[in-house]
């Protein structure tokens, strides 16, 4: 299968200025591939460079060195004009604080990537309804984000990320603000979307429980890939135990198991 995402020798240095002493190497040569249809988690201690990695992949941040290929295209050198189009067409984002537009209803929030991409109004409505049903938020579509629960908000954000059928869905701590029940619901939906529609998902998380829903977990520490775990055929519970073991060896970076 073709690589949905291919990262090579990614380096990101913050604060590279006159005083070299203050520079932070947030990423120090990260390389990995994600196949189309994979559901991958990135874990690591706080400050290890997870968000930085995700932002570089998301084209929100520019890496200092290295390349990021999404669907075969190198995004590191793209002009900012093309980047907007690229993000819209190829990427979907879910952030910790859901980041829906407060002025728009949930329906309109989900529709946004389609309307920007000039999809005809009738199709927009159909596709929004379909994905909302899929993620179990069809009943809140006409409410405003502040009128729905945190879990629903996060699922609405997931709808928005997936409605355009992106090559890659990127999620930074999507369950960070949710209780365990809501986390579970969201993750199960991710899993379903991944299994049924073949959505490729890359998720940053602190939480071993969340990571245990994925097919593969990348561990990073001090800006480097420390190790990776594949789920293989084991069931989720057992995968969770194995993740916990690795987390224990890296130290920190994990909430308690739920």
């Amino acid at each position: 299968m073709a690589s949905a995402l291919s990262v090579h020798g990614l380096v990101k240095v913050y604060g590279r200025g006159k005083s070299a002493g203050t520079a932070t190497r947030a990423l120090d040569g990260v390389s990995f591939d994600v196949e189309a249809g994979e559901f991958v988690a990135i874990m690591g201690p706080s400050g290890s460079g997870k968000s930085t990695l995700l932002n570089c992949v998301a084209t929100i941040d520019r890496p200092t060195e290295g390349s990021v290929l999404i669907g075969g295209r190198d995004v590191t050198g793209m002009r900012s004009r093309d980047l907007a189009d690229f993000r819209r067409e190829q990427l979907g984002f879910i952030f910790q604080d859901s980041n829906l537009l407060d002025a728009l209803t949930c329906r309109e929030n989900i529709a946004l990537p389609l309307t920007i991409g000039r999809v005809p109004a009738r199709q927009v409505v159909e596709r929004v309804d379909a994905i909302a049903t899929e993620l179990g938020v069809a009943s809140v579509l006409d409410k405003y984000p502040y009128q729905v629960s945190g879990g629903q908000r996060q699922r609405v954000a997931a709808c928005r990320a997936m409605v355009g059928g992106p090559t890659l869905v990127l999620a930074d701590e999507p369950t960070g603000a949710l209780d365990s029940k809501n986390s579970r619901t969201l993750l199960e939906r991710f899993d379903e979307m991944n299994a049924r529609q073949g959505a490729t998902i890359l998720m940053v998380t602190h939480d071993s429980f969340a990571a245990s829903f994925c097919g593969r977990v990348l561990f990073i520490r001090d800006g480097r890939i420390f190790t990776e775990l594949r789920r293989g055929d084991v069931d989720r519970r057992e995968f969770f135990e194995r993740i916990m073991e690795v987390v224990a060896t890296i130290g920190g970076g994990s909430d308690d198991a739920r």
Partner: protein
Amino acid sequence: MLAKLALGNVRRSARDFAIYFVTLALGVAVFYAFNSIGMQAGFLDDYASQLVQLIAQIVSGITVFLAVVLGFLMVYANSYLIRRRKREMGLYQVLGMTRGQVSLVLTIETLLASAGSLVVGFALGILLSQLLVFVTAALFDDAVRNFTFRVSGEAALLTLECFAVMFVVMLLVNLVSLRRVSLSDLMGAERANERIKVRGLPATVVLGVAGVALVGLAYWRLTRDGLPVASTDQYQGFLVTTAIVVVGTVALFYALGGVILALGRGARGAYYRGINMFTVRQLASRVNTVSLSSAVISLILFLAIAVSASGFAMCAAFRTNLDVSAPYDASLSAYYPDDADPSAGERDLLALVEERGVDLGSVTRSSFQVTSYQPSSIEGGDSLSFSSLSQASGVALPGYLQTLAEQGNERPVEVIGQSGYDALRRANGLPEVDLGDDGYLFLCTSSKDTATFFQGVADAGVPIELAGMTLHPVDVPVDTGASATLQDGTAGSGAVGVIVVPDAALAGALPKITYLNLMYSVPAEQGDAVASDAGDLAWGDANVDADPSDPVLYYEASRTECRYASVGISGTVAYLAIYIGFVLVVASAAILAIQQLTSASDAVPSYRLLSEIGVPRPMALRSLRTQIAACFAAPLVVALAHSAVALAQVIKVVRAVGQEGVGAYVGASVAVFVAVYVAYFAVTYAMARGLVCARTDDARA
């Protein structure tokens, strides 16, 4: 320690403070500049200088009113600042600072920002006042003499006092508002702002229909009733109309957000295209949260446009009328005592003045005199009055003549002969008008309404019985031009109306007043000096010592004097109109700017999100521009609509006073205001754009 924190805060939130700073500095500058008009008088010559000093007094009265407007603006700008930083204030308290300490930080911050803007404002104001010297000079038709760079201590002191008071008020408002809100409110301040309020469809429809209906009703009433210039009864109706338009405007703005949303969503194809739905929603909620203040701004703009445009219109009216009201270089007049000998007839005033030692002839190129006669000394003249003409013709008297007639104070009709009128026509380079043996003609320069009245009487063919003759109106329109002016004066100062009759009808009549009009053979300054000597004869002993049967000199005017008097009035009116209008427009545009920047900065996370999900920068900025433009345009459009209706009435009134072509002045002043307003929009957009771009460029933390 706290001071350091405060200074750090000012520096860190420079962008938030910038708006406060700019508003305050602008307020100080305008306030100082206009109050320094007393100082500007020093640059002008005596006459204009006196006028300007008079205006300075009026300005300082109006200044109190404007200080209140600007004070409101400051408090507004300040509370914007506080609102933006409530969370921070809450955080300080959570970290263990006492309320007193937080208040102190706040006070120091406000003090720092205010002191800074006061200094900048003064600098700007001093520059502005130097420019204003020239504007003032132009308004008073004078040149600037011995210009030097000057600072008015008086104005500076006044400005300082006003702003000290306002500063204290502002501080109190801050402290009270800080004290009133609980900590959880402070911390939640950011959340609360994000709530979206849009009125439901039924409310929108009711409000919208009510708004349109009320405003329409007010327009209709104003057009029907006109401005309340004629009598006090009209005033009540005018107040009612004003109340209706205020309520209607408020209703309109309350409905606007819902209307935008309904229209936007109605066009489904367009709504679901690009980020139009974001634009529409954002705009609707913006408009909704500021609906009351938008309505107020709209009304203030209306007031500003109406005040300054009518000011300019009046200015134009007073000014251009001079061609008609003061066509001669100088005029002198004398009245005849009641016991004068009719057989002595008209006296030569030029000779009379020379007898008393003033040689007007030496400065005169040409002169002529016109004499009016006592109607009561002519057979049948007793019954000649404005009300008898009105009765005979069935044409109603103009308002003020009617009032005078009712009070038994009717103004006398002046009668002159054909020969006198011929002289007037010749002096103004116009062909003579032959009345024939039994014709008569009206002259009228007092007002358009009065002229219309006379024309009505003439059109009715009302005959006049005089000296045994029956006179009929000639088929010539009422003369309202320079040749109807018996002597120099300011606009509307001449006789109410004059009847020209054949000389034969005046045979043996008692002269009433002789008007002597001169054209100089020398430069005006020289001529005026001699003419004013002649005028002094009216005040000195010359009149008293003179032969009791001689006419009594009582009036002298030169065109220069008339020009000053008229320019004085028009200059004063224009100055005040500009001052008030300018301050009002600046104040309302500043409030709008602050509101727009507030909501732009509130919406920064939204723009960042849009950029992250792939909205191209130009598309996002277009949305921002549309929103700001719409918020600026809505109050202006409504204000312009109100103004169009009101100014049509103003123009009507000014026309009645006798002035055509004020439309251009009105248009020009409206254009200047719109330009200032648009400039504010441009600056606001540029700032909002900077705000959005700067913060969407940061990567997500």
